[in-house]
């Protein structure tokens, strides 16, 4: 079977950052593979190593710069990558339906049996694309999966869904399916030097809207970010000042007042 993994390069803000317009200043952002997607890539690669998946393809929506991040997923064992980008996507805050338009077109080309992606992207935190994609392409789905066992012969994925409060739901999902992957599902590997070398030769196919049979109208977003600001600190904490010794001294005093003792 074929596994398609949706991956995203996400931005993380430095401790000190400035806001320019409706986004954080480019110079105050660091880019990396989305943490949740790292677990999805690992799950797919493990399926390949177990002989269940024949091919693992990653798909991302991102400008050319993201290829460095995509290569990390290839270095960990994905076979090849598809990167979708178009000028029409530049500067807009893509809504869920637009992303689904793009992924739908890639699914039509790749015809995967299983689509894996992270529960959410660390930067925008929507948590919606995978389940919306499943609806569009007529796949079954399960969101927030933290245990996965694929029975390819029976065409079923046995999953646990991590509910709130330390409860997991046990579910069997018929394939083809879209599963959104929670952190902790597995232990994502580090790319080996050999993997990194091999990744240089793996294909990253760049596609624009016309390659996918889409137009700019298809991906017009219904959402606009109109402002961004730092939330006002609601802190009324007593901040303990001084060097490590002085602050530990004051904190010890506080803790003893609260009745803490060995």
């Amino acid at each position, binding site marked *: 079977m074929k596994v398609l993994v949706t991956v995203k390069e996400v931005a993380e803000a430095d401790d000190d950052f400035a806001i320019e317009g409706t986004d954080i200043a480019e110079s105050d952002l660091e880019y990396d593979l989305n943490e949740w997607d790292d677990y999805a890539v690992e799950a797919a690669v493990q399926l390949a190593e177990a002989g269940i998946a024949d091919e693992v393809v990653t798909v991302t929506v991102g400008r050319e710069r993201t290829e460095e991040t995509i290569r990390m997923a290839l270095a960990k064992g994905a076979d090849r990558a598809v990167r979708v980008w178009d000028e029409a996507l530049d500067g807009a805050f893509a809504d869920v339906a637009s992303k689904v338009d793009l992924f739908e077109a890639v699914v039509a080309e790749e015809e995967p049996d299983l689509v894996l992606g992270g529960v959410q992207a660390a930067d925008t935190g929507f948590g919606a694309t995978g389940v919306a994609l499943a609806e569009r392409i007529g796949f079954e789905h399960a969101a927030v999966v933290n245990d996965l066992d694929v029975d390819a012969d029976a065409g079923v994925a046995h999953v646990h869904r991590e509910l709130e409060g330390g409860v997991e739901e046990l579910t069997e999902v018929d394939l083809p399916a879209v599963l959104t992957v929670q952190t902790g599902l597995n232990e994502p590997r580090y790319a080996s030097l050999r993997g990194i070398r091999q990744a240089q030769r793996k294909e990253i196919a760049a596609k624009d809207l016309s390659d996918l049979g889409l137009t700019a109208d298809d991906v017009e977003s219904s959402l606009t970010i109109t402002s961004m600001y730092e939330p006002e*600190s609601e802190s009324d904490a007593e901040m303990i000042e001084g060097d490590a010794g002085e602050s530990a001294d004051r904190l010890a005093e506080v803790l003893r007042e*609260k009745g803490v003792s060995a």
Partner: protein
Amino acid sequence: MSVLVAAEHRRGALRDVSYEAITAGRELADARGADLHVAVIGGDVDGFAEDLNRDGVDAIHTVADGEEFDHNAYQAALSQLADGIDAGAVVLPNSVNGLDYAPALAEALGVPIVTDAVGMAYDDGLTVTREMYGSKVETTVDVAGDRFVLTVRGGEWPPAEGVGDAAIESVDVDVPESGARVTGFEEVGGGDVDIADADVLVSVGRGIEEEENIELIEDLADALGATLSASRPIVDNGWLPKNRQVGQSGKVVTPDVYIAVGISGAVQHVAGMKGSDTIVAINTDPNAPIFDIADYGIVGDLFDVVPELIDEFA
């Protein structure tokens, strides 16, 4: 156009976010001059309907289908209801189960979805307040058009109260056969210790950097006579067992003293410990959200402060 809210329940009890979503839904209904409808699907729908009949609810629709959550039934029922009552706005819990059907419902209805709202305003259209970049910033997002699905974060709206005079009616829904079947539930995080019983918790987060450094925090817990707990990344990494995890998907704790070491205070973590009597935070980032709920804070390197603190109690 009316406003439709879906309640959430698990194992025989309504979850709090149901009442909070009703408050958010009422806010929207007032702004749009609309009626507020509430749907409850599966389980003891008649008993749930009675509980959900709070001030401001105009109608409650009960859909008897199974005992527990099934995304297929929720989507089928809410699609049918949304069409039937011309629900332009659908307000749902931003929970694990909410995110298992809300995006599919929005897609099926052909309307935009905005998730994890922490606030909203409605004038000519909907403006949602939500966080980005791991809670470091808030954004306002304008939604084009007057039809949408909105999921609301738990704990951001007060629960609806009082007793309403909603019309309660049962609805038959044709639920198509599902290719996703729930076969059971499992409690996780049992074992040697229940962190919810501890009077003093020393909790360790990502700031600890390496597995071998956990020992330092164990030493601190020993020195203070405290119990060791952790935030999610520590458990994801397998450095401490699941029964030590504080937060939305772990344990909710309310000790007398909670000492957060190297924990930034993501919303999922805070949901699990904000009820602690006294909260102490040690973190290098002065902007870390953990300081927003702390009573005492030290901006500093835990590797400098913690050994000194251990010495104080040695």
